[in-house]
């Protein structure tokens, strides 16, 4: 099986769970990445202080995004960059295609760019007969398999080396053994020629530095350096929120990103590219274009629940930490981004309220994503906000709606509640075995399919309260003022987004 099938998360997850290769591969690699991060952050020390600093820098930049983006644009132009704006995905593809057509390009060589996946750039080039080749090893593998990436950092995380050997053998026209070194060696030789003949190099962008108009790219293979060194024209796709104010701030991002992604102190290459080659330089692009992409990002600005989503630095740590992602893999999620960040980002960017029902529920709200996030994005809270909005906009399933209305009725009146508990205590007698209800009859099935319901006790808590309350009164201690104040502040701040200078 190559890719989980189904029209929603539940169906795709079910199909993924039957694929043992996929489950083993994803579990194995996420575990390794997670342990790598743990070791690297422990070794570096003071991780919480670094996280907080990273969060503050991102909050600050997004709160003043109009200023920093304008500064970035002015500085990039001063270095000779042609800057373009893509309010929507299709605009980014249109601009890139227009440049490629004007250049008479026959081939484009790409380094890793999640934004390019968002705007389906390969399809746009191919429609014109322009070859568009992924050069990151993982991206190259999934391009050959004709699949989208299933992890932000390790795009082919769902494939094992036997499957990869099969794909590359087809490309090689001979049988390659399933050995990592040989497979990578084949990709190196094959792609080296592509780099040398490509008319256009297309890159993504990890950070844009406002004070100098520089594009910063983190990578390990050297393919992004190839893409930005050899072809005559460079096109960089940049999400409009990728900015940081200064090179000083890059030290913080360079501390957080590689450690969170793979546990490295720094990726093998971190390149700052500032404009096309200088007049006397012998290599680097002669012409450089940066396409700044919105594609739903600006909708999060000014939204207290979701603005912090733009702080994301795309490290993938939340995927590796997520018990749901680790079981169902990236292809069970709709859209380009998977895992906890994808579950929030995809509906947010696509404005697709109906899809919220589906993805926002693919989470246990355990908060492991928040713990893992190097810039402390409260993803688990955002999933709850998504569920709230889903209910407000009436996209709840009819059974759930009825159940909630019944619940409201019961909880609104102590008489109704008391009688319902009594009825339950009598009615359950038919279903209870050893203190648990296991039956999957009717509406119970949704719950009991995966767990048992404890039986209602003979005397309910409410019935015991008269006796219990006097006991509690005796033992209770008043809450310290300081604690009370702090809790009140917490309640007040809830749902108002991050604070920043």
């Amino acid at each position, binding site marked *: 099986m190559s890719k989980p099938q189904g029209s929603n998360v539940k169906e795709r997850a079910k199909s993924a769970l039957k694929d043992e290769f996929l489950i083993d591969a994803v579990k*194995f*690699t996420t575990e*390794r990445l997670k342990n790598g991060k743990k070791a690297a952050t422990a070794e570096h020390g*003071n991780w919480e202080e670094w996280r907080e600093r990273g969060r*503050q820098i991102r909050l*600050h930049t997004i*709160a*003043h*995004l109009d*200023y920093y*983006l*304008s500064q970035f644009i002015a500085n990039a132009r001063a*270095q000779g960059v*042609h*800057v*373009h*704006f893509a*309010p929507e995905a299709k605009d980014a593809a249109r601009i890139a295609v227009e440049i490629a057509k004007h250049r*008479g390009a026959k081939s484009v060589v790409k380094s890793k760019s999640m934004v390019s996946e968002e705007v389906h750039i390969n399809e746009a080039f191919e429609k014109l007969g322009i070859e568009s080749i992924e050069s990151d*090893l993982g991206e190259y*593998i999934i391009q050959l398999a004709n699949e989208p990436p299933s992890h932000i950092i*390790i*795009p082919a995380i769902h494939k094992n*080396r036997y499957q990869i050997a099969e794909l590359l053998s087809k490309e090689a026209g001979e049988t390659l053994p399933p050995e*990592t070194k040989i497979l*990578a060696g084949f990709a*190196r030789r094959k792609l080296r020629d592509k*780099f*040398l003949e490509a008319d256009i190099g297309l890159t993504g962008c990890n950070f844009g530095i406002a004070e*100098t108009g*520089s594009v910063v790219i983190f990578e*390990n*293979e*050297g*393919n992004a350096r*190839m893409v930005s*060194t*050899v072809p005559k*024209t460079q096109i960089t796709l940049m999400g409009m929120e990728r900015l940081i*104010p200064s090179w*000083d701030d890059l*030290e*913080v991002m360079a*501390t957080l990103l590689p450690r969170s992604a*793979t546990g490295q*102190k720094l*990726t*093998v290459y*971190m390149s*700052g*590219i*500032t404009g096309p080659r200088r007049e*006397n*330089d*012998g*290599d*680097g692009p002669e012409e450089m274009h940066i396409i700044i992409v919105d594609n739903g990002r600006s*909708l999060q*600005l*000014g939204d207290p629940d979701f603005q912090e989503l733009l702080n994301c630095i795309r490290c993938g740590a939340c995927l590796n930490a997520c018990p749901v992602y680790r079981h169902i893999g990236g292809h069970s999620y709709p859209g380009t981004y998977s895992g906890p960040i994808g579950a929030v980002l995809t509906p947010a960017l696509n404005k697709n309220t109906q899809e919220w029902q589906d993805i926002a529920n693919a989470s246990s709200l355990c908060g492991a994503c928040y713990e893992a996030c190097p810039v402390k994005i409260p993803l688990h809270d955002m999933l709850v906000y998504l569920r709230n909005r889903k209910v407000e906009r009436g996209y709840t399933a009819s059974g759930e709606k009825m159940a909630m209305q019944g619940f409201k009725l019961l909880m609104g009146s102590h008489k109704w509640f008391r009688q319902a508990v009594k009825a339950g205590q009598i009615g359950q007698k038919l279903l209870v075995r050893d203190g648990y209800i296991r039956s999957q009859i009717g509406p119970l099935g949704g719950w009991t399919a995966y767990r048992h319901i404890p039986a209602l006790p003979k005397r309910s808590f409410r019935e015991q309260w008269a006796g219990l309350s006097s006991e509690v009164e005796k033992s209770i201690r008043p809450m310290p003022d300081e604690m009370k104040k702090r809790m009140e502040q917490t309640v007040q701040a809830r749902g108002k987004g991050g604070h920043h200078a």
Partner: protein
Amino acid sequence: MSKSDPAFLAKLSKESQEAEKLFIGNIASRLGRSAISPLPAHPFRGAPEFWTSYELEREERIARFMSNWQAAGGFTERADSMSEIPDIVARILGELNAKSTIRQNLPELKQLGLEERLPELRHDAWDSLDAEGSLRTAEQADAGIVLADYAVAYTGSMIVMSSADKGRSVSLLPNILIAIISADRMYTRLGEVMSRVAAVPGDQFPAGIHFISGPSRSSDIENDLTIGVHGPGVAYALIVG
């Protein structure tokens, strides 16, 4: 055709100016402002305060750099002065059976005298006047020899900044990278190099600034580490001083 038609670029530029107003205007208005934010105070700039005073002693710095570079899969050598470097380079090239080298066009590297010492090998220096030829030479060379602009001990990184004499291809295309690093230009933290980079005036700012922390690698197949995917697979750091 190396650059686009000026009329085409002028058209793009006009479209860009118009689109920018709407694009930035939309961001400002979403943030509740009618005009672009003025220069904001940035109280959280750069690394946390406790970090900015962290500094290793010279010998510790060198030791830390070497252990990081080795942990990343690279090789290190230490020399007291530049006069020892030619022997070391010749030995490395011999061991790896290299047939050709390309180096940055710098006097320090010319003074290594590789042409005289290893006349049976082909040696080239980066020549920006023959850009196409230099690219081909670098692509076919077995080893690229560079002088690092800076190094960072804590992350085990060396930094090369591009210029007419320092082609980016030299540290990228050959399978062997030999980087000569002066211990005087090695700092403890990334931030010390960042501030030096940011201080370069705009009209002298290099197009490519590359932080390199070992040989090229990939973990894209089963997270199994492979060395030397697109960039150099053998990376030597020779520390002088």
